[in-house]
């Protein structure tokens, strides 16, 4: 049988692209400080939408009556992740929603977390 091709370690593809040259279109006001939101930061509404909030923000508040990740909000509202973080930054600042940061991998993974994930997957 033909032997498979071999990977060379530490030799990333030459045409990997210059990250300096790619820009995200945020659609947000220039220079605005944005809340540090992860794709899986969980968002929960704390209030009903008031008549004054923007339609997209009212939609977020209705969707977040139960917890939803920023990624899910982005998908359901068909808005790019970066645009979603702009809208959520405002809602967080006015206290209309609250956020829960994800549980992240630390240098040493949390064993009780991993046990929970294992048990959850075994039930699938």
């Amino acid at each position, binding site marked *: 049988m033909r032997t498979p091709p071999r990977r060379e370690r530490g030799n990333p593809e030459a045409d990997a692209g210059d990250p300096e040259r790619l820009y995200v279109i945020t659609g947000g006001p220039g220079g605005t400080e944005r809340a540090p939101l992860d794709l899986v930061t969980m968002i929960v509404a704390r209030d009903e939408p008031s008549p004054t909030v923007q*339609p997209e923000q009212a939609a977020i508040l209705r969707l977040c009556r139960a*917890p939803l990740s920023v990624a899910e909000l982005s998908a359901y509202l068909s808005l790019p992740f970066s645009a979603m973080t702009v809208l959520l930054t405002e809602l967080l600042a006015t206290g209309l929603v609250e956020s829960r940061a994800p549980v992240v991998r630390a240098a040493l993974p949390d064993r009780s977390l991993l046990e929970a994930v294992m048990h959850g997957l075994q039930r699938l």
Partner: protein
Amino acid sequence: MDFRGSDPTDSGTISAGSSFDTIDTGSSGAVSAGSSSDAIGKGPCGTVLGPRSEDILPTTATSAVKIVIVGGFGVGKTTMVGSVSEIRPLTTEETMTRAGVGVDDNSGVESKTATTVAMDFGRISITDRLVLYLFGTPGQERFWFLWNGLFEGALGAVVLVDTRRLEVSFDVIGRLEERGVPFVVAVNTFPDAPHHPAEELRKALDLPDEVPVVDCDARLRASCRDVLLTLTRYLYALSVPPG
């Protein structure tokens, strides 16, 4: 923190949401990135469908973790996300511009092109407090930066490979190593794909002995679940302090 589930006395601070299926985005629409996913059909008059009622998370579900599924073009990432997700897979999109000086423009004049990159993801509820998200990342790793924090904080990664085209997954493995993201390799078994002995594959991918290499069929839920379990067990083994 205790992830084993809530005790009934813990009512949480979040008021329970009523069940709903559609939300009105108002007449302005404000939908900038059309989604290719039919999981989010749009109703008439600018209404956007939300989660199906059976997909609404309990109010206690406020802790989330993520695992990323990586691999070159067409290796089965989307298929794997769809096989294990409890919700119909969703798509999040990001739009970027690229300054095109001297790249695809011989005149040397600055031109900008907008590109939309999609990433699909799914969800598995682990307990009533903890939710696992799975992201099927874009095949080209130069787009990964678009989602800030996609890899930072991820528990780990599954590298899907297709033995007919092993080389399309070389770069993503290198990138994971650079970022220090622990990963397992899952060999997606396409019917006409050559079967290499595990040791030959490990050599070809230049993997350290401890990195698990398993076979899978991305179309089967049980097979994908086993891959995720292999990753979780591997992470667990890594968490044992040496000595």
